[in-house]
C-alpha cells in the first residue's frame, strides 16, 4: 500500500518542482501519486504530500532532486496543534514501533518565521503522549521527528522579531528520512568557484535542474550543440553520463590556458573523462555521420542578448567569391581562417533544434533547452507550434524575470521512425509548416532591446522623457 510522504521544498523555481520530481521518478522507474486537489499541488507553498510505494523511492527523490529540502514519513497536519495531535494519535500504528527503545530527537522549525526557543520546548513537550521510551540523542539519534510550522509570507512588513508567533497557517509533523542530499550540489557547482567560466555561464542550480530533466545517468550519451563554457556538461557528467559538446566558437570551449577550459573545469569536478569530446562546428553545418546517437540533448541556445546566435553564412546576400579565401591570417589559436557568420533568428533556431533532436536522439530521448519569452505576449501555442511530428512536450517551466522570462522546455521523442537530418533552411521550414502562427519569441533580441514596448511610438515617447 502506498505511504504518504511529506516533502519540504526550497521556495525557488516553483514551476520546476513537479517536472523535476517526475523526471527523477521516471529515471528510477517508479510512480509518484500527487493529490487530486489542485490546492495541494500549489507549488508556491513549500510543503507537499506525495504518495510513494516505498521509503526507498523517497530517498531516491531526495538524493537527486535539487529542490527538495526535507523528506519525512508523513504523520499529521493541522491548522492548530490540537487538530494535528488528534490526527497524530490516529496514526499510532505508523510510529508505535519506535516507542520501546529507539533513540530520538525533535526538530522544530518554521517557514517565514523563527520560533523562540522557549516555545520550541513547549512544542516538543506537546508530543509527550507519544510516550517514546528511548533515549534522547541530539547528535546521532536513530530517528528524528520533525515539526514544521508554516507562516504566511510577510516579506516587506515591519514587525517585532517574534510578532505573530504561533499564528501559523498549518503545522506539519512526520519522521525525518533525509535532509537535502542533492541541494548542496548547487554550492559544489557554484560558477564563481569554477576553474573556467564565461559571462553567459548558466547558474549552478539551473544547470542541475536541466541535468535532471535529461535523465542523465551512467552509460548515457548527452549532447550540447551550443556548449559554450560547458555549464550543463559538468552537471550531466556528474550524474554519470558521457557528454559531447560542440560550438561554432572554439574559443568559448578552450579559453586561454591549456588544457581547454571545459576540461579544466570538468577535472575540478572529477568528470573530465566523461567529456567525450569537444568539437568546433556550426550545428547547422554539422559533420554527424548518422542520427539516433544521443540519449539527450541539453542546451542553452544563445538568444542574442549577451551572446548572439550565429550560423555560418553572410548577412547580406552578396555572392561569395569562388574558391578558397585569398588571404590566410596567422592567428594564435588554430583558427587560421574565420568564416563569416550571420545572425540566427530565435524562432528559427528553436524549430531547427527540435528537428535536429528528432534526428539525433534515440527513441524516448529528451531535448532540454531554454527558450526566452516575452511575458506579456507568450501563449502556449508558441511552444506547441515549434513541435514537429514525433516529438511531444514533457515539461515547460518558466523562470520569470518580469517583462521577460525563459522557459525550460523538455521534449521527448515518441517515435521510432527514422527521419532525415534537418535542412536548416528557413525557406524549407516555412513551407513544411503551413501554420502561420508567429510565436512571441520571434525576433526576441530586437524586442529585448526595445524594452518589450508594444510599438515604436511608445518607446520614442519614453525616450524623450529621459
Amino acid at each position, binding site marked *: 500500500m502506498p505511504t504518504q510522504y511529506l516533502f519540504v521544498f526550497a521556495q525557488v523555481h516553483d514551476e520546476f518542482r513537479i517536472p523535476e520530481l517526475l523526471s527523477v521518478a521516471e529515471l528510477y522507474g517508479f510512480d509518484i501519486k500527487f493529490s487530486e486537489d489542485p490546492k495541494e499541488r500549489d507549488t508556491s507553498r513549500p510543503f507537499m504530500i506525495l504518495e510513494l510505494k516505498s521509503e526507498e523511492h523517497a530517498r531516491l527523490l531526495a538524493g537527486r532532486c535539487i529542490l527538495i529540502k526535507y523528506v519525512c514519513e508523513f504523520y499529521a497536519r493541522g491548522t492548530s496543534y490540537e487538530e494535528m495531535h488528534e490526527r497524530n494519535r490516529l496514526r499510532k500504528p505508523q510510529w508505535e514501533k519506535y516507542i520501546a527503545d529507539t533513540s530520538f530527537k525533535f526538530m522544530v522549525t518554521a517557514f517565514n518565521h523563527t520560533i523562540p526557543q522557549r516555545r520550541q520546548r513547549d512544542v516538543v513537550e506537546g508530543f509527550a503522549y507519544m510516550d517514546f521510551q528511548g533515549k534522547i540523542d541530539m547528535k546521532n539519534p536513530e530517528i528524528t521527528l520533525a515539526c514544521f510550522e508554516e507562516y504566511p509570507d510577510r516579506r516587506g512588513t515591519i514587525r517585532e522579531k517574534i510578532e505573530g508567533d504561533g499564528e501559523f497557517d498549518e503545522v506539519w509533523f512526520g519522521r525525518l528520512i533525509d535532509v537535502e542530499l542533492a541541494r548542496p550540489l548547487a554550492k559544489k557547482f557554484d560558477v564563481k568557484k569554477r576553474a573556467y567560466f564565461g559571462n553567459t555561464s548558466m547558474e549552478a542550480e539551473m544547470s542541475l535542474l536541466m541535468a535532471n530533466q535529461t535523465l542523465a545517468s*551512467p*552509460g548515457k550519451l548527452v549532447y550540447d550543440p551550443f556548449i559554450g563554457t560547458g555549464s550543463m556538461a559538468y552537471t550531466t557528467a556528474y550524474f554519470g553520463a558521457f557528454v559531447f559538446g560542440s560550438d561554432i566558437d572554439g574559443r568559448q570551449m578552450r579559453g586561454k590556458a591549456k588544457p581547454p577550459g571545459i576540461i579544466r573545469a570538468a577535472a575540478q569536478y572529477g568528470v573530465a*573523462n566523461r567529456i567525450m569530446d569537444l568539437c568546433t562546428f556550426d550545428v547547422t553545418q554539422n559533420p554527424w555521420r548518422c542520427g539516433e546517437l544521443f540519449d539527450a540533448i541539453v542546451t542553452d541556445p544563445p538568444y542574442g542578448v549577451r551572446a548572439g546566435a550565429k550560423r555560418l553564412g*553572410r548577412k547580406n546576400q552578396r555572392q*561569395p567569391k569562388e574558391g578558397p*579565401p585569398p588571404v590566410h591570417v596567422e592567428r594564435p589559436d588554430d*583558427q587560421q581562417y574565420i568564416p563569416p557568420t550571420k545572425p540566427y533568428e530565435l524562432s528559427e533556431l528553436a524549430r531547427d533544434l527540435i528537428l535536429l533532436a528528432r534526428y539525433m536522439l534515440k527513441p524516448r530521448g529528451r531535448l532540454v533547452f531554454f527558450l526566452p519569452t516575452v511575458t506579456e505576449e507568450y501563449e502556449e501555442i508558441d511552444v506547441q507550434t515549434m513541435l514537429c511530428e514525433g516529438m511531444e512536450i514533457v515539461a515547460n517551466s518558466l523562470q520569470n524575470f518580469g517583462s521577460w522570462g525563459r522557459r525550460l522546455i523538455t521534449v521527448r521523442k515518441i517515435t521510432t521512425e527514422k527521419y532525415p537530418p534537418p535542412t536548416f533552411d528557413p525557406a524549407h521550414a516555412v513551407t513544411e509548416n503551413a501554420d502561420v502562427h508567429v510565436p512571441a519569441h520571434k525576433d526576441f533580441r530586437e524586442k529585448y532591446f526595445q524594452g518589450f514596448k508594444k510599438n515604436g511610438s511608445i518607446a520614442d515617447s519614453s525616450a524623450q522623457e529621459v
Partner: protein
Amino acid sequence: MVRLITHNLLACHAKGCTSNNFPLQFQDAAIELRDAEFNADFLRGFLPRIEWTALVGAARQLGDTSLPAEQPEMLDDEFLQKLHHVLLEVHVEEGAMVCPNCKHVYPISNGIPNMLLAEHEIG
C-alpha cells in the same frame, strides 16, 4: 581528446562532398592514452552505431591492432575491454583529420578538432 568513438561518428560535410567522405584519415596524430570508466551496457548499446571497418582502420593507423578485422558475434568481457580501450581511451591530441574524398583538412589542436567550413564549402 578526439577519441576514436568521435572519429567514428564524424564525416566530411563540405558542400558536394557526399561520397567516400568517411572515415577521415588521421595525419601527424599525437596520441595520449587516458583511462576511462568501463561501462559494458554503454558499449553494447553503442556497438550498432559503430562502423566497424572504419574503427579497426583508424585504430591500426594509430598503431593499435587489438581489434579483429571482423566484428565478433560474441560480446564477451575480453572483447568489450578491448573495444572500451580503443573507443574511449585513445585520444588524438594534435594533428589533423583529412577527408579521403575532397582532401579537406580538419586540424586538431589541444584535442579539439576544428570542423568549421569555409564560406565556399557550405551548401
